[in-house]
């Protein structure tokens, strides 16, 4: 059955599998991610590194077995009659069962769960609370102001220029609220609790350098907590399809050194003042 043509093809197919494994391993060895800038992000990167080594090892072992069998049994060399032994096959299945169970659940429970808890657990006391509002196709950031309380809002009061968030003028808590368009100012090294609201469709609040992403859902408030780790300028990118301007629904994230942030915030006027 086996011809010289098949030998060449076996070689080519083996080369394809080697190339797939090589491109994958070499490609993943390069760090494509934007430089990390939050404490949670550093932990996500550590989890990704774990997944890279664990799944990379499985991929390489699988590819090696595939290529070895192909090489040995594809070139027309005499092949001993196969054994069909259900007991042997059951024992062998323990290898992937135990191997993958450990690899997979270590990733989720040992490496992943602590990050999950930091992002979704109760925010630590002293966290800066910020409200981020998404709408087609921009971001409005609100700080509670010196009183630390967000003022009430009413969708019927929304006015694109004068009152984009629909703040209720009668509510004293809202008078000192600081509202900023398309820029999120944060202090470095301090936990930030972001409350997310949308007034129209789904959006997703993602800051790639922080490795966080949280959908913004109309009708409910979603929230995440993270600690920006270094001062600098980053970007919010909308990650959930929200309409024709989705691809350019970005905003600036400016992380200040802690004291500089306080000065910045004090310098802002209340939205209704």
């Amino acid at each position: 059955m086996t011809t010289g043509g098949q030998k060449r093809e076996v070689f080519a197919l083996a080369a394809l599998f080697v190339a797939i494994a090589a491109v994958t391993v070499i490609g993943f060895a390069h760090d494509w991610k934007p430089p990390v800038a939050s404490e949670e992000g550093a932990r996500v990167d550590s989890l990704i590194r774990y997944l890279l080594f664990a799944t990379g090892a499985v991929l390489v072992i699988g590819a090696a077995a595939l290529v070895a069998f192909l090489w040995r049994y594809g070139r027309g060399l005499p092949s001993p009659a196969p054994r069909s032994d259900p007991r042997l096959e059951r024992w062998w299945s323990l290898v992937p069962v135990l191997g993958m169970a450990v690899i997979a659940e270590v990733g989720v429970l040992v490496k992943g769960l602590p990050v999950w808890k930091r992002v979704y657990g109760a925010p630590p006391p002293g966290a800066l609370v910020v409200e981020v509002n998404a709408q087609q196709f921009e971001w409005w950031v609100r700080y509670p102001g010196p009183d630390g309380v967000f003022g009430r809002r009413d969708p019927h009061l929304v006015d694109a220029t004068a009152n984009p968030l629909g703040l209720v003028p009668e509510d004293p808590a809202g008078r000192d609220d600081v509202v900023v368009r398309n820029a999120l100012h944060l202090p470095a090294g301090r936990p930030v609790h972001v409350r997310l609201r949308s007034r129209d469709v789904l959006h997703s609040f993602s800051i790639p350098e922080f490795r966080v992403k949280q959908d913004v859902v109309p009708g409910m408030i979603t929230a995440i907590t993270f600690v920006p780790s270094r001062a600098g300028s980053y970007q919010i990118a909308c990650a959930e399809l929200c309409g024709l301007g989705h691809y350019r629904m970005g905003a600036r994230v400016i992380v200040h050194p802690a004291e500089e942030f306080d000065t910045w915030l004090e310098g802002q006027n209340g939205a209704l003042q």
Partner: protein
Amino acid sequence: MSAEAVHAESFIRRYLFSTDHKTIGKQYLLTAFFMGLFAVGWSILIRIQLAWPHANLPLLSRLFPGLYQDGVLLPERYLSLVTMHGTVMVFFVISFALVSGFGNFIIPLHIGARDMAYPVLNMLSYWTAVPACILMIASFFVPDGAAAAGWTAYPPLSALPQAVPGSGWGQTLWLLGMALFIASFTMGSLNFVTTILNLRTKGMSMFRMPLTVWTLFISSVLGILAFPALTAAAIMLLLDRHGGTSFFLPSGLVVGGQVLEHSGGTPLLFQHLFWFLGHPEVYILVLPAIGIAFDVVAVFGRRPVFGYRTSIWALLVIGVLSMIVWGHHMFTSGMNPYLGEYFSVATVAITVPFAVLGMNLIASLWRAEIRLHPAMLFALAMIAAIGLGGLGGLWLGTASSDMYLHDSYFVVGHFHFMIGVVTAFGIFAGTYYWFPKMFGRMIDQRLGKIHFWATSVGVFFAFIAMHFLGLGGVLRRTYDPTAYEYTASVTWLNLPISIALFLAAAAQVVFLVNFFWSMFRGQKAEANPWEAATLEWTTPSPAPHLNWRELPSVFRGPYEYRTDGRAAGYRSQVVPDEPPAEVRA
């Protein structure tokens, strides 16, 4: 009715309104190829946009005046292309070809039945699917264009016509098309399950069925259980759009400066309903492809499948787990984080039975005698795609890393391996393998190999590289991938990805030419050109009406190649056991 009853039927009865499972299977397969032309065509426009986002393309503008304006693809039409590429590929190409196409063609032939349990229902299933196709294609020609809310159709975007162009008539047609598709698919699934449970021939126990039938059986059960959730979601969404209800719409929505009257609904409900189907749907599509790979690897590897029974148990475990992990599409949706962590634990557990399947496929080459027919090439390359897709799935199934990777090109690369490459390679392996039985002629091997190499090089490179884009933070469904500064150092990858995919798309032309040329001009096929042991090869090629003159009886499992220490040869499932020596004497 005996096989002699093959009578002169009118062309219409025989080729259009046929109740013969083989004809219906072929109708589905050809319909899938036809819909595939659209879906691949749209993906080419998508890839042109991503490779050259700022180019002026007057030629395309002239060819597709509805999509382009002054040489520039409109952003809302880009979203329509993405939405319809996904929808049509998942439901109208892969489901049609793999499940409805091969399922119809091969189930009765594999289990020794004359036809499906409900032949008329089967015909009805196909003729319900046809108008669904027409609605989907027609939606490109309605005011405001085709649906643009993504194949996931998340409200409020899909519920509010003013939220995005394409959320007008296009979205309504999309929902109606999906409803028809679901009705059609459910008829097919009920038929498959009934046929497999009741019409197996004498001796064909469940544990003597080829793995293709096992996978189709599990897929059909999953379809019956999961699709009703999407039916419910589609009906509720239609009512929200046209009936003034608020299943998915909360109060306080402000769209276009207007406060909407809706109140009391939540978009998350739709997501749960959608993924309650959407996730099992992945396995509905992937499992039959893997089943075909097992069958092909056994025949062209000339040895029994390694771990036939452990594979069946793994498939059953996958079936059960697939129903309880839908929430991993929603880690970042705002769902309760405790629930998210549960879904994460359950999701990554699925890699365990998948790893068993993968190992069994690889180990099925141990002591094999490999014959590199195009069917075998696609089956072997599928193993690599399962590996890449499955291992990448671990990155996404782990909630904490999904937080970074969700909605990025990492996801796009990942699911294109699982429901793109694995399933397409299953379709191709099945086509090259069963072509003689379908059309009575051999399909050209040389063209088949050209098809394989061009497709493989293109898709493996492109979809691996998409993972890198995703790690670089490039988000999916973005009309202009260069819009954000932080991706500036990675977006160059879009050009080589597009070129690789153009190569893969061109390879499909070779496939279609080969397919239709061989259908009419190919060398005549014998009954059993591959020396295969399963039942479909015991009847002439093409299989006649009602499949066998006399129904075969089955005496053994489906994969007895070179067993019992015999260096060569195989034993068909219909060969009885040799009587013990003393009886013979």
